[in-house]
């Protein structure tokens, strides 16, 4: 028991680094994406999905799913209006107690190529007291044709943004990811955001042909940022409960096919919008999971929990996430931890 809880050295480092970024983290919760709400429903593969993969969940017929929406912050206090990356973790129920996970979040591209990169940026992003920009500072920004710094978050007067910005000045590969992260806006609903799986998957069809693909959930209701500022801190939970009581929330599983020259194991590289797109299916969420959506909290979602015909690649970040997620699951006493 003690050995399992220690995990390997790297996953422990990652876990600890994340906890350090959130000093008020509550034990027994996830180090990031601490606050979440679960929903249940089903996935229907499209008619062409089986042409691209022989994996069970793409062959046809409904597959039961459990989904956990979350904010990426590790703070135990919910703040739905913060500039934050949102997560959507999906668990597909296959035959005989087997499950496949597909984890996505609202970042289309990541900011680290390897666990070491991630530790470096997490260190750079250690929160420091965040003061509002002075009038002089705002004037200088205007004269230099720069954007003014965003106002500090009243709920959390510490911010790691300044440190991260210094980091990406030097580490150019991290720029697209950080720019995407800094530009995150609060959505009007968890069901009105687009989620991306930043890793590349390897799909094999019945002919043995292999294709390299990336996935995204596209909301059928369309994406919508939240423009009101006077909402309660848990408005996304309230909204989702209310939405699902009226009608299901639906997302389309969009798959993009990689081409020669595309980065297959580097989540910091975006693929161009010119890539071929295939609709692999649709997910229909019919209600909350458990009492008030708490049914997904004990579950373990792991980005490496895949299945034949739908596999991961040698992405360093993915490998690290697999171990770190397992470790974190064990730390908090979650269900179904080992992949």
């Amino acid at each position, binding site marked *: 028991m003690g050995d399992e809880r220690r995990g390997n050295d790297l996953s422990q480092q990652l876990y600890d680094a994340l906890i350090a970024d959130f000093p008020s983290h509550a034990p027994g919760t996830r180090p990031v994406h601490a606050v979440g709400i679960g929903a249940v429903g089903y996935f229907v593969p499209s008619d062409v999905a089986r042409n691209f993969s022989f994996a069970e969940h793409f062959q046809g017929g409904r597959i039961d799913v459990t989904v956990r929406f979350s904010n990426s912050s590790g703070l135990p206090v919910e703040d739905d209006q913060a500039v934050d990356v949102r997560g959507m973790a999906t668990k597909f129920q296959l035959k005989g107690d087997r499950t496949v996970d597909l984890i996505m979040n609202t970042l289309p591209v990541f900011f680290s190529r390897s666990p070491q990169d991630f530790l470096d940026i997490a260190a750079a992003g250690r929160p420091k007291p965040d003061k509002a920009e002075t009038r002089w500072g705002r004037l200088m920004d205007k004269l230099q044709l720069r954007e003014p710094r965003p106002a500090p978050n009243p709920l959390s007067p510490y911010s790691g943004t300044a440190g991260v910005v210094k980091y990406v000045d030097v580490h150019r590969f991290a720029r697209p990811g950080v720019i995407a992260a800094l530009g995150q806006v609060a959505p009007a609903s968890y069901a009105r955001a687009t989620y991306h799986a930043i890793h590349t998957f390897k799909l094999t069809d019945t002919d043995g042909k*292999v294709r*390299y693909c990336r996935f995204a959930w596209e909301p059928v209701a369309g994406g919508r940022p939240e423009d009101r500022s006077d909402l309660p801190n848990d408005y996304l939970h309230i909204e989702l409960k209310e939405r699902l009581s009226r009608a299901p929330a639906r997302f389309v599983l969009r798959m993009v096919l990689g081409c*020669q020259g595309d980065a297959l194991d580097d989540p910091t590289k975006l693929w161009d919008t010119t890539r071929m797109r295939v609709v692999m299916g649709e997910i229909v969420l019919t209600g909350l999971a458990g009492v008030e959506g708490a049914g997904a909290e004990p579950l373990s979602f792991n980005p490496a929990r895949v299945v034949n015909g739908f596999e991961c690649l040698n992405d360093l970040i993915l490998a690290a996430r697999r171990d770190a997620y397992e470790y974190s699951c064990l730390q908090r006493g979650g269900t179904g931890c080992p992949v």
Partner: protein
Amino acid sequence: MIVDPAVDLADVQGNILRGYKKRLVRHLVLKVNDAAAARRWLVEATSGDAALAPQVTTTANEEPPTCLNVGMTYAGLDALRVAPDQLATFPQEFIDGMAARAVKLGDTGPSDPCHWKPEWRDPEQVHLVVSIHADVRDRRDETADRVLGAGGSRAFVELARLDGERRSDGVVHFGYKDNIAQPHFDNIRNPTDRPDMQPLVEVGAVLLGYKTPVEDVRWEVPEPREDLGFNGSFGAFRVLEQQVDEFERFLSASADLMMNSPLAYQSLPPKAEDGWDPPLSRHEALRELVAAKILGRWRNGVPLVLSPTSPTPDPRVGTNDLNNFDFTTDPDGLSCPMGSHIRRCNPRSARIVQRNTNHSRRIVRRGMPYGPLYDPNHPDDGVERGLLGVFICASLVAQFESIQYDWMNLGLQDPRITGTNDPVVGNNDPKFSSFKMPAGSSSIELRGFPRFVHTKGGAYLFLPSIRALRYLGSIHH
């Protein structure tokens, strides 16, 4: 010999309109050291006096025992002090140089210029490529030495010498018989040329200043037109290393796959290989079939269109008939796949997407193998071997680059191959490569093959007319 009097063959360098029949070649890659001495050499080499310097061979001569030809890069023209306003009249792709166009040509990965041989890596240094064709080694060496000795050995610095040798049976390193098809020009031809069912090609396809095969389009001629550009041509000189081990391994792996595939019987009926001469085992025959399907001809040169299931059909396809076919009789590629090398690079009259370009991109290919012959009994010998090629045309961007960019790679000319690259010479990545052999109502897909040809160097050359060589030699600086 039928000759159009409008073309002054004595003004055109040799090996452009008619290929040399020589066994040996030495390409001297040169940097101009002393521009005045280099210019003097150009005058001497076109003076008609062999005592002064070996003479540049023209198309008018009966092919002499040793042939000498000269090409210059943009940097070379600049080194010879051509005036900037004249340099600016040269086409942009020539000014950029082959290394700068690498991505367009598919020279990426192992073919990336950063992996090229040292002499090619700095395009500013490569000025001239002097090519010496001969049958006798001593004569070749002597001519080369005389060129290097020009101007008291001050004219040029030798960056490299690249030697090629043609085998008597015309076989190149992948085992194919090469150099079977070349354009036949409409006003310079030999009545004994092999019939090829293709229209005659306007001489403007290779020479500047004439009607081109592209409707009413005329390529812009570098200025001064009469003195420098007219009767000149452009050549893409390429050092192409061939990965013969990987190629042979691919043939074997593909044969393994097809031994168990019922579709393979559509392409090679059961026991068909027993009727070959000599008969081969099924596995060996499938290897030969794959080699044929990816190229478009059996390794002995017989085109698939004329004989899809045997390299030695009965009656045999005579040497004179090796080009006597067209793809119009094979619209679905059941004999010769649409993605095969010869069909990609020269679609003849096959139906293609860009309907008016069937015959407008034709180029002249000159090349010779380099490196020792591959011995299948001693594979993986670590020896470098390949092809020294020059692809000659009047407009590099409209002909050579267009073929390379959207026919050879990308496969834009036929929707059934779009998105895939030439299996023999294309820019292939094993994770994405694919070649389909139509068979019956379906097709056999070969996947996972790497790039078999690595570009190891090269340059875009201007092949001036004799008058232009004299003009370059007389520039006052």
